[in-house]
């Protein structure tokens, strides 16, 4: 019982002081040996003095307690106002009596206006017709977390979707509980509302990634399965050229599957910072010429040209760098228009090799710009599958380059083209930790 304890703490010193005064003040007067008239005057002075001292004492005691109460309220307010979740306090009269900063920001409430009044209007008028279940359909008044909390329920993480007046749609997770009671009646309820839009977006990307990954793994698998069944049924009737062609095609599909699985494993390892590089010295100029020639053969009518010195030695993970290059070039082809020109440019700058892949493709829109290197991100959904891909390419490429101590970035102009570039440390450095 904190109230009884606080009251006792205030009253007890007063009681002790008053009792001691009563007991000892009369004894002190007796000791003075005063005559009757003097005694009356002294008694009046003593009484007045008693009132004065005890009043002062009470003032000090009450002030101390009030200060403690105000301090703890300020502390609570400061915590609430700085919480990242939106906090809304609602009275049983369905009025908002407190909102924190996060709530004003989340619900786009004008902070210069009377926030409680604005929030009441927003919460009890606007939200009535703009709050929906995640799977669609409006949330009826009685279903709302605030109403259920006013009926004594404790709500944890109720999902809902809110369409804001600005046109923005946010996914919310709402928790609510009764906050204060009087005579067994709930007076106020507190709502903690969390914006889970980003989480939902990432979950969506992950689901899409899983579905794309399954699809991409099944495609080479379908070829392998069809080919083996065909071989089983018809192989004996075919000549050796046809048999060899079918087996070679099957073999290429196995390689495709292996690459997809390696990408998946690398992606998992890189997200835990566990990418293990297998470095050796090799000629990057030659690799660029080979990768460009291989892709150039199937990229028609897009043209790929190379600007590079004859040789440029780097100390890096050959297989993975080849994958990064292939990925950048595939993207350049994928997002090229029919008359596209792709230029791969290799230079030595200071102690680094700098590789640029320039295209004259569709470019990257402003909305996509900050997401390009995001895991699972797919630029243009319609272009997806043209050359395969699970949305891991650029994310993984950057992780691979960074694990080598290099940097990867890009510049792009919508409708004009994009340039992706990365750097790698030059030459063979045997001192370099092989397993960074």
């Amino acid at each position, binding site marked *: 019982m904190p109230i009884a304890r606080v009251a006792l703490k205030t009253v007890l010193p007063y009681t002790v002081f008053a009792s001691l005064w009563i007991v000892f003040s009369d004894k002190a007067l007796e000791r003075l040996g005063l005559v009757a008239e003097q005694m009356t005057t002294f008694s009046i002075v003593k009484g007045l003095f008693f009132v004065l001292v005890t009043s002062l004492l009470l003032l000090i005691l009450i002030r101390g307690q009030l200060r403690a109460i105000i301090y703890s309220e300020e502390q609570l307010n400061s915590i609430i106002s700085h919480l990242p979740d939106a906090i809304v306090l609602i009275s049983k009269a369905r009025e908002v009596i407190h909102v924190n900063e996060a709530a004003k920001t989340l619900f786009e409430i004008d902070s210069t206006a009377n926030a409680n009044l604005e929030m009441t209007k927003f919460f009890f008028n606007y939200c009535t017709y703009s709050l929906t279940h995640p799977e669609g359909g409006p949330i009826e008044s009685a279903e709302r977390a605030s109403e259920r909390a006013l009926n004594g329920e404790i709500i944890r993480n109720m999902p809902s979707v809110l369409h804001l007046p600005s046109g923005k749609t946010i996914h919310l997770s709402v928790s609510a509980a009764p906050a204060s009671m009087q005579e067994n009646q709930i007076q106020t309820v507190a709502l903690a509302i969390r914006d889970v839009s980003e989480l939902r977006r990432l979950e969506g990307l992950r689901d899409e990634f899983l579905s794309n990954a399954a699809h991409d793994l*099944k495609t080479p698998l*379908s070829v392998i399965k069809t*080919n083996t069944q065909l071989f089983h049924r018809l192989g004996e009737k075919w000549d050796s050229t046809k048999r060899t062609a*079918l087996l070679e*095609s099957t073999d290429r599909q196995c390689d495709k599957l292996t690459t997809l699985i390696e990408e998946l494993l690398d992606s998992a390892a890189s997200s835990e910072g566990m990418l293990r590089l297998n470095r050796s010295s090799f000629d990057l100029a030659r690799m660029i010429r080979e990768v460009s020639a291989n892709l150039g053969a199937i990229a028609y009518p897009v043209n790929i040209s190379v600007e590079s010195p004859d040789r440029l030695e780097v100390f890096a993970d050959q297989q993975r760098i080849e994958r990064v290059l292939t990925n950048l070039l595939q993207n350049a082809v994928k997002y090229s228009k029919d008359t596209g020109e792709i230029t791969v440019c290799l230079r030595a700058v200071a102690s680094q090799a700098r590789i640029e892949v320039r295209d004259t493709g569709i470019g990257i829109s402003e909305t996509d710009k900050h997401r390009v290197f995001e895991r699972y991100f797919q630029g243009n959904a319609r272009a*997806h599958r043209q050359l395969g891909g699970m949305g891991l390419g650029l994310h993984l490429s950057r992780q691979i380059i960074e694990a080598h101590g290099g940097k990867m970035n890009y510049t792009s102009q919508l409708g004009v083209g994009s340039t992706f570039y990365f750097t790698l440390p030059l030459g063979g450095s045997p001192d370099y930790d092989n397993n960074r």
Partner: protein
Amino acid sequence: MTITADIVLVIEDDPSLAASMEMLLRAAQVEVLSAGNGLEALQLLEHHKPDLILLDMKMPIMDGWEFAKLFYQKYGHTIPIIVLTAAENAGKRAEEIQADDFVSKPFQIDELLKKLSRFVRVEIF
């Protein structure tokens, strides 16, 4: 008297799978037309009238959904469509575009031929 073979239009973006499908269908004595996406298929349909369409769903340029929409708009349900997809829930995909049947990738040759035989003459090999 020679009986002309039925024609199947294969709409599939993966060139290796398209090649294997073609081999399979030829072995079943079916004539094959190939398109790498929905748009190519619509162009082919201006000059050819296949007896059946085998349709992949996820393709570049024009996917299976858009192809089906445009195809029904122009030709109605004149040619049966069998959806051939690696996506999960192939049946639902087929329902979405009002296709006549579906086959999930990877598939058994016998299962594919059995479904094909509902619409075209195939020789089980």
